[in-house]
């Protein structure tokens, strides 16, 4: 079965450090999403891309978060500098694109900022 691959699975870092999360979408999927999940806020959309172009990053704190797709097989989410409130599970998901396409989620990166 094709799957979305996220690395690392777990990350513990100190406040102020840079964090980079990576995602390999399913081959042939042209839409990639980044979601953040916390108990309080649930699944929040941070940003998404179609054909590597950013379509919406309104959910992302611009001063410290950045998302890119250097190529069709890699999406990255960076936090610099990290803060304790960034602690959450970050999910990447991909879809074939177009309205009504199912999202396929990766296993997530569990980030803890101390």
């Amino acid at each position, binding site marked *: 079965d094709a799957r979305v691959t996220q690395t690392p699975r777990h990350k513990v870092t100190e406040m102020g450090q840079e964090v980079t999360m990576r995602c390999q979408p399913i081959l042939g999927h042209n839409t990639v999403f980044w979601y953040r999940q916390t108990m309080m806020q649930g699944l929040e959309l941070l940003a998404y891309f179609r054909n590597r172009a950013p379509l919406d990053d309104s959910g992302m704190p611009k001063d410290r978060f950045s998302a890119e797709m250097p190529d069709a097989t890699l999406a990255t989410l960076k936090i610099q500098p990290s803060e304790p409130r960034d602690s959450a599970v970050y999910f990447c998901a991909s879809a074939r694109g177009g*309205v009504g396409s199912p999202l396929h989620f990766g296993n997530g990166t569990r980030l803890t900022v101390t």
Partner: protein
Amino acid sequence: QQPVQSPQAVILREGEDAVINCSSSKALYSVHWYRQKHGEAPVFLMILLKGGEQKGHEKISASFNEKKQQSSLYLTASQLSYSGTYFCGTERANFGNEKLTFGTGTRLTIIP
């Protein structure tokens, strides 16, 4: 705008039925349903599209009331494996915009 799910949590005995509801204040093009087990990623269950088309698993049934912007997920003869948190996600289809916004989830617990 985040869709509203109800109930927030439900406990069932194996074999009982449940209905999970999802409503939006905005006009929708589609509603997605996902299930997430503890410590795992959300998994796709079903999509209901404006106009009546549905895509998903045969054993899952759901409805989409386009006039009320409401969707319901029907879980019948529940099994232990149905336990998890169910999320609805809604798409407001502006051209070229398939942003999916998730509800806060419904935690379903099935007991033997």
